[in-house]
């Protein structure tokens, strides 16, 4: 902290360039190390999925197998498990949940952020309280309710607990609060109803928040094992993690090569979707209609 500050005269251009280079190397070194740490399990999954069974259990760490066994592992996984079916289930569930979440949360968040009505703050407190309740708490009543209605083993059963996302309401409310009141008032003067203001004026400006929430929501429900495990027993309806579990139990035993190959196949759509959505975060529609 208290390092002597070199005066302007003592720092030559070469010296300052070297210092800048050194600090760049240092910063990037730390970042790369962190990234490797987080990517390691993922890389290990990719590596294992192309190894033959004999090499998987060898003690030495090798990033490339001596014998390329990828084709066999992937073929085995694709033949023995309906992986595309699992992936499709995942897409249906994630898309269904996300669409309903947005349809419900955006108007709620707008009302909490921009409309004046009695009890607004109380409702917002309730939303915050809702954030504190883990999904396991209402699991039993939901299960019993769905069982009574005969809705177990349906897509609907897998999606219904997540239709109301208090997290989304909270996130969008925070985002909408910074939306200029003048624009909303201008829309009111132009004759728009509150619903049209929500969907035609406010939502288009919220794309960065929507994209961020879409990633959270999709990742959470694509990878969710807990709830599908409770309400689904039919393998045809299984989303990816549950499908993996069925696959691991029944077909593969300890064939880790095939198992990681299946995991790779089921992770790919999510990684691709994230890479596509990533641009949205960076672009971010700026609120330049004002000032």
């Amino acid at each position, binding site marked *: 902290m208290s390092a002597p500050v070199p005066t302007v005269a003592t720092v030559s251009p070469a010296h300052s360039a070297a210092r800048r280079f050194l600090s760049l190397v240092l910063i990037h070194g730390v970042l790369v190390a962190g990234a490797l740490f987080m990517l390691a399990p993922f890389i290990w999954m990719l590596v294992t999925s192309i190894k033959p069974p004999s090499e998987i259990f060898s003690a030495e760490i090798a990033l490339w197998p001596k014998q390329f066994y990828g084709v066999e592992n992937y073929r085995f996984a694709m033949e023995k498990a309906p992986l595309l079916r699992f992936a499709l289930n995942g897409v249906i569930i994630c898309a269904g949940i996300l669409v309903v979440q947005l349809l419900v949360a955006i108007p709620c968040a707008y009302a909490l952020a921009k409309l004046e009505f009695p009890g607004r703050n109380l409702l917002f407190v309730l939303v915050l309280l809702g954030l504190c309740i883990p999904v396991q708490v209402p699991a039993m009543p939901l299960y019993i309710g769905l069982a009574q209605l005969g809705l177990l083993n349906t897509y609907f059963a897998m999606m219904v607990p997540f239709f109301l996302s208090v997290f989304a309401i909270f996130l969008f409310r925070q985002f909408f609060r910074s939306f*200029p009141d*003048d*624009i909303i*008032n*201008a*829309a*009111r*003067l*132009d*004759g*728009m109803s509150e619903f*049209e203001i929500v969907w035609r*004026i406010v939502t*288009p*400006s919220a794309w960065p928040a929507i994209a961020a929430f879409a990633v959270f929501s999709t990742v959470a429900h694509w990878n969710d094992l807990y709830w599908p495990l409770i309400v689904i027993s039919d393998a045809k309806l299984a989303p990816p993690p549950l499908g993996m579990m069925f696959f691991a139990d029944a077909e593969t035993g300890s064939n880790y090569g095939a198992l990681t190959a299946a995991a790779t196949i089921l992770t790919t759509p999510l990684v691709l979707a994230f890479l596509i959505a990533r641009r949205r975060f960076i672009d971010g*529609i*700026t*609120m*330049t*209609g*004002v*000032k």
Partner: protein
Amino acid sequence: MATVTLSSIAKSFGATRVLGGVDLDIADGEFLTLVGPSGCGKSTLIRIIAGLEHQDGGAVAIGGQPVDHLRPHERRVAMVFQSYALYPHMSVRQNIALPLTMSRLKLWQRLPLLRALSGQRRTVMRGIEADVAAAAAQLQLDHLLDRKPAQLSGGQRQRVALGRAMVRHPDVFLMDEPLSNLDAKLRVHMRTELAELHKRLGATFIYVTHDQVEAMTMSDRVAMMDSGTILQLGTPSQLYERPASLKVAQFIGSPAINLLPASVGAGGRLELFGRPMSLAVQQAQGQAVSLGVRSETLSLVHGEPSGTGRAWFSARLRRKENLGSEYILHFDLAGRDLPGVTMRTSPAQAAGVSEAAEVTLGFDEAACHLFAADGERIEPRGLGVATASIVPLRA
């Protein structure tokens, strides 16, 4: 076209009273400016007229019809906001067309999929296109129609906001500090444009500003507000030449009016810095009176001050401001613990005064404004025959 009538409008936010019973009659086609320091309630008043806020008491009528029960867009008013409030994701064309699509298309004709089913829609849209083009041409926006607001300069955005207001031919234009975000040069230019637009459209304009120059230059009448009430309503020259209170006098005019402390002497005669003036007031002896002197009524006194009906005092030049065509001279009141005075004068006059020089400043007593201790304007009472014989005393 429409008159706007406000009767005893009151509004409070929580415990804070923002408007305390405002009455205002605005004539058809009038350019009326609400001016006042920030927080005086002028913006709240204009938002009540627009229907964006609801008053706690009182009534708003537009064109003689009460509008209190009407929603903002049903009141046939358009508003231009300080922040322009353009829809950021829409092009200029869509921004200007929006009020028309809202009023001319039914809800189902605006919905993304259903609208394809409407045969009429195309005809209506063509009409809207034509109206948008006409408005854009009036404001020289033709070449910008496909841009987004983010790609426009401040002045261009302001014109788009005007276009969006104009396009539906409202009876009343409400403008909430529309020029505040523009740079000084553009503001002067837009003042002229707005005044011309008002003349061309013939609509009623209600204009909110904290800038007294805008109020003075554009308006037919000015309502000066403070603390939720109208202090004075009149033409710009009435406000400037006969301010009803100290607050109005201080707010209107640039540089601000000079205030000198006078006191009431024997027989009601005013004394300035201990020297009797030829003005007398009704106030009791010993009371303080503020003497308002506009910077252009001050002049340099050369040699011995003399003359009936003229007051004078000595001052020391602190700073000269060169505005090109004129000078603003800032003086300290020599040896007195008072705010200084400013004088507006010609470059030739200013050249005669050097920095830190002691000078004598004089003014015509008839041209000054008198305010009682409570800030109300007071009129001088004649001194009768004696007035003419008074010779200003020497220091």
